[in-house]
């Protein structure tokens, strides 16, 4: 529509991601490197899945709409599976790299823990996924027109931006849960992560009925967020203490006297 819609949608889609990047990642060069490497891994997975989809579309009958829709669903499922596969691959790579880093560095402890790596890689996946979801839509939102002359819903830009924000945060939560599950060898957690990713992606087939796709996605995001918080070491007691500003008292109370 205009510049105000462009900026509004950009801030909605990338607001949390930018905030997270600024405060937690930008100061530490090692985290930045792992973030970019994670984004690259996601990009490669997208490239592979789009190659497969593209070839299958060229082979198929372009005129038949049900066949094209079936191919789209197939493409989405394949893409999700490939993304999770590459997440696993990244995890393996990071484990090996961590041993190497430890051997190289002079210190005794690891410069970056596997939990932080999980968070950073999840955010990297999220950044790249969000960029690919929404950049072309943002580019068209700068022009004077809005979606609708052919009968589509008017809320296209806004709902795309909200969906992107959910996806970015979801990737971050999935990253944390995934790496934690791999560490503790809890394979059923992995299955749940993959299943929820599939569910969120397939929910987008409800569009343009945006309520049907956005509301469940946000519910899933909230649930995954709670789970990731627990995997990362948080607990309800800590949260309550933080919120009521009693955390310092707690620390002081637990301070062992010399």
């Amino acid at each position, binding site marked *: 529509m205009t510049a*105000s819609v462009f900026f509004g949608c950009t801030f909605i889609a990338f*607001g949390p991601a*930018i905030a997270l990047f600024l405060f937690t990642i930008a100061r530490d060069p090692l985290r930045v490197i792992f973030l970019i490497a994670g984004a690259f891994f996601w990009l490669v997975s997208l490239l592979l899945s789009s190659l497969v989809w593209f070839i299958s579309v060229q082979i198929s009958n372009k005129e038949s709409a049900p066949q094209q829709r079936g191919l789209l669903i197939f493409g989405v499922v394949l893409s999700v599976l490939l993304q999770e596969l590459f997440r696993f691959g990244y995890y393996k790579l990071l484990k090996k790299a961590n041993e190497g880093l430890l051997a190289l560095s002079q210190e005794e402890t690891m410069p970056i823990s596997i939990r932080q790596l999980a968070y950073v890689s999840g955010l990297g996946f999220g950044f790249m996924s969000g960029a690919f979801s929404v950049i072309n839509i943002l580019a*068209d939102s700068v022009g*004077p027109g809005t979606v609708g002359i052919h009968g589509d819903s008017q809320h296209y830009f806004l709902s795309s931006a909200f969906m992107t924000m959910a996806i970015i945060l979801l990737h971050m939560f999935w990253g944390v849960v995934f790496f934690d599950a791999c560490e503790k060898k809890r394979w059923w957690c992995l299955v749940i992560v993959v299943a929820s990713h599939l569910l969120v992606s397939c929910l987008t087939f409800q569009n343009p009925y945006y309520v049907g796709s956005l509301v469940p996605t946000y519910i899933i995001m909230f649930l995954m967020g709670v789970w990731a918080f627990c995997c*990362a070491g948080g607990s309800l007691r800590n949260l309550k*203490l933080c919120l009521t500003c009693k*955390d310092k008292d707690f*620390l002081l109370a637990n301070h062992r006297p010399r």
Partner: protein
Amino acid sequence: MDLISTKWIIHLLLCGLFYGVSCNSVEQKIYINLNDTVPCVRLLNATHQIGCQSSLGGDVGVIHFLESEQNLEYVLTNGNNPPYMVILESHLFNRDVMMKLKNGSSRIAGVAVIKPNSNPAGAFSPHTTCPNENTGVYSESYDPALAHCNGTMWNPNGNGLSYEEFSFPIFSLKDDNGTEVIRQCYMDHNRAVNGSVPVYPLCAMELSSHMSAVTDTVTCMRRSDTSGLSLNPEQVCDPLGNYNVWGATKGLNNSASGHSENETVVVAAARLDSRAFFHGISLGADSGTSGFITLLAAAGALANVTREAPPPRTVLYAFFQGESFDYIGSSRMVYDMQGDKFPIDLDNIHSLVEIGQVGLHASEGLWVHTDPVSRRNASIETEVKNLTDIFRSVASSLNISLGEPDVSQPLPPASFQRFLRAQPIPGVVLTDHRTSFTNSFFESMYDNAEYLNLTFPAGLTPEEQFNYVTDTAKGLAKVATLAARTLYRQAGGAEERLAGINADELTVAHMLYGFLIQTKNPWFEAIVSPEDLPALRAFPPEHYVGVNFNSNSSTKLVSYVFANLTGTAVNVSRENCSNSGTFEDAADSTDMNSYTWVRGVTPPNATEPAGYCVRSTTRLSRAESPAFLLGEFNSSTYSTWSESRWKKINARIFLVAGHDLEMLTLGLGLAVLLLSLLITFFVNTKADFLFSSGREPANATY
């Protein structure tokens, strides 16, 4: 992988690169591009700029179909959603409405005019009431009583819209499926039902036609980089101009210039161009095209007899381009003659016959106009009387009604006036109006084939329409015969030969079809050279003079037709035809004649047309105003018209959302950003504590 499947995959990838790239599906959801639109562009002269201008990125406005002149109130004062893009039906495209829109232009984003499929009733002429007022021969010094159309108002229906300056874009739309989409969008979203306010999202249109040049020709030529010093030269305007077509009954030495000894010439002139408010739809059927088609047919009628029995004086046929814009072509030819840059000069001219607007002669009869001021000279008076007497006698023998207007009436706007400005020459202008123009659509988009009654019976294929001789064609052929016989007599030819001079009706019908309906027809395909074949399309040629050498223009086609009608075929091969060394004989040389290789027709048992070489006297002479040659961009004697350049011209429709929805989105975005910054900052500072339950508290304190 074996070699075959690798090759297969690579092949697929390459194919994919070709197909996969272009479609941007989000843009297709938003915009509908309007094809087939004609913009109004900006023209500049020494002192003014006329035409339309849009903002750099285009102007966006909410669509409103104007129902009547009273409905203007809604657009100018009452409506809640300015700026508006006003869409006018043809009957509302008049001076009153356009001036009101011009004055209220802060609320008007642009105007779109729907060109109807058939001409409206009444009169409409966007040209001025006194065409070419300051560059004709009638000035204060020549005769104050006749200057500025004090004697006769030539174009009384003129409302001067073409010469107004508008600060918003104006486009013309065809009345077809595209416009139907716009109407549907308007009905669905914009229509205010019984006083209620239309609710967002509203249907809107964007028109882009940003013109680079401003103020006047002096400014834009100064800003154009003609010094050649800059690496990235930027031109902002181009002078209007094209080429004149001229030829003669006898070869004139093109390499000689200045006065030609022992040569007296009768000039037969007509104008090639016409204009309208929208330059893309200017056919000028009566204004200009009827004149040059008649002269071409007359040249064809005279071709044989001037070869067999050459008259004492040569007839020089001149077709002038750019006459609507202060006589660009004729002023340049007179300038060349005066400056010894043309094979003959003004002293060689014995007399001049010009064919003006003759398309409506069937109802009005024909009239020969003369210049009263030059006729005060006795010798000129005798010559003019001679000429008009010849006209009368030929007309009566052909049963055409021909009359002379009042002797004190001046000449109508005609190229002859530029010749008179240089030197008194006896001459007449042949038209279909006695005083003011009978053409009620002078220089407008409605002066088309339908106005000339060029209609065919229903159910004919294009080929049959092409060969059908309408009454219009028969009428114009008669006028051409009249002109041809008069020219032959005026050139001193024998009276006995007159009966054999007849213009061919089928040729006139072919020319009318080719120049007013479509250029793609069997005759044109046979008489053009092979390189120019792709330029023949299913549209009529552009009769607007344009800039540089516009390949859509009619100039080249006129030169081919002239060559075909007056030239002869020569038996040489294609390479020799273009080689000037082939013709050593002085009479055949390329100084005296021009040679063109044309396609020809396909013989019965062949697939390719058999081309041949045509010898004729056709020449093209540059029709650019002497003002640009001399660098006098503020000249008041010569035409200084130039056309602005532009980068992008397009039109599209889409929906616009309300301002509040946009602000809501922006506010929401800012809120989300601020909230996430706050939460992240908070979580980050407390991170050690928040995520500590997996570790022993003791470790956390060190």
